């Protein structure tokens, strides 16, 4: 045992000694992480529109198209095409026969959940439809997908920090568990990237994000929507753009 400890100490001493003698240079590095999608063959991008559903408090189709266009304008080299936002839900309903609509819910809240959404998602594989749209705008990269923005609620134990005044008058803080009702919003977002020349699907990415507030707090739906989109936007942008990660490394002699 003593021999092992002695060997450990000698080994530690040697490695410390080696590091102490070693010349080292810290250098900044800027490491590129390649974009998931090679968009070099496209010069333009069309954010066409989205299958939208869930809460009627906002129009997720228009809001998402507007937000993505503004993000792409500043953070991508592609030229963003200004065009009317397509209503893909209406497009799918037009295709369905009058006797057999995809959804029988009427105009109000056609898509309420992800199961309703699935029935409409066939549009992403309709090459002819996307090819036709692509021809209108000189074969751009087409960004589409689905947005399901729903109101959610949950009840349960939430940990909070509560102040406690001690006998000496000093306030201390401790973590306490409280039962709370919470409400909030969930965003189920699917981004679909389509080649405007062939109409074929290039890449798709599904993301989920949710946020909860105390039930007493009145948070506007639009504000919650932007909060949730802030979380998914980096993933969307890195699909198209090469990202660079800055850090440091140690060169040694």
């Amino acid at each position, binding site marked *: 045992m003593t021999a092992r400890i002695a060997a450990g100490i000698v080994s530690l001493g040697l490695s410390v000694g080696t590091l102490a003698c070693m010349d080292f240079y810290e250098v900044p590095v800027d*490491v590129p992480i390649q974009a998931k999608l090679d968009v070099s063959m496209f010069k333009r991008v069309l954010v066409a529109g989205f299958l939208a559903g869930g809460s009627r408090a906002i129009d997720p189709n228009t809001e998402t198209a507007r937000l993505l266009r503004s993000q792409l304008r500043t953070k991508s080299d592609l030229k963003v095409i200004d065009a009317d936002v397509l209503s893909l839900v209406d497009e799918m309903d037009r295709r369905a026969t009058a006797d057999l609509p995809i959804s029988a819910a009427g105009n109000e809240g056609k898509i309420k959940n992800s199961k309703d959404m699935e029935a409409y998602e066939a549009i992403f594989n309709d090459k002819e439809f996307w090819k036709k749209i692509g021809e209108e705008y000189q074969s751009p990269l087409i960004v589409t997908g689905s947005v399901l923005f729903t109101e959610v609620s949950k009840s349960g134990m939430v940990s909070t920090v509560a102040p406690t005044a001690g006998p000496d008058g000093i306030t201390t803080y401790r973590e306490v568990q409280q039962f709370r009702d919470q409400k909030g919003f969930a965003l189920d977002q699917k981004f679909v990237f389509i080649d405007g020349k062939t109409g074929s699907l290039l890449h798709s990415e599904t993301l989920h994000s949710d946020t909860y507030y105390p039930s007493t707090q009145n948070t506007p739906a639009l504000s919650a929507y932007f909060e949730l989109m802030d979380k998914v936007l980096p993933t969307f942008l890195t699909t198209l753009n090469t990202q660079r990660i800055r850090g440091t490394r140690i*060169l*040694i002699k």
Partner: protein
Amino acid sequence: MRTRLWLAATLILALTTPALADRRTEAKEYVDWGITCAQKNLWPQAVLQFVKATEKDPSYAAAWNNLAIGYEQLGRFDDARKAYDKALALDRSNQFIRTNYDQFREIYDRQNRRRDR
């Protein structure tokens, strides 16, 4: 018999040590120059120097470590991983190499997750 063996071993050591030392000295010169290039952000040139250093002395862990960093900076992640593996195989206890490798793995794993999707 034993004395002869000792003599032979000493002779071999005496002959090979200067040759190895020469190799290391030359490799160090490449590494020095590579570090200068890297500090001036001339990474392609730095990588060339580190490659020469590893060719000159393949047992030089520092050269492999520096080469791995160079490859990383150029986005050649698979080459960087091989170079880090080599550096760690030669000097597993080196904390500088381990730290560099741990930081690289975060990026490497992330990049591979993206490719798998």
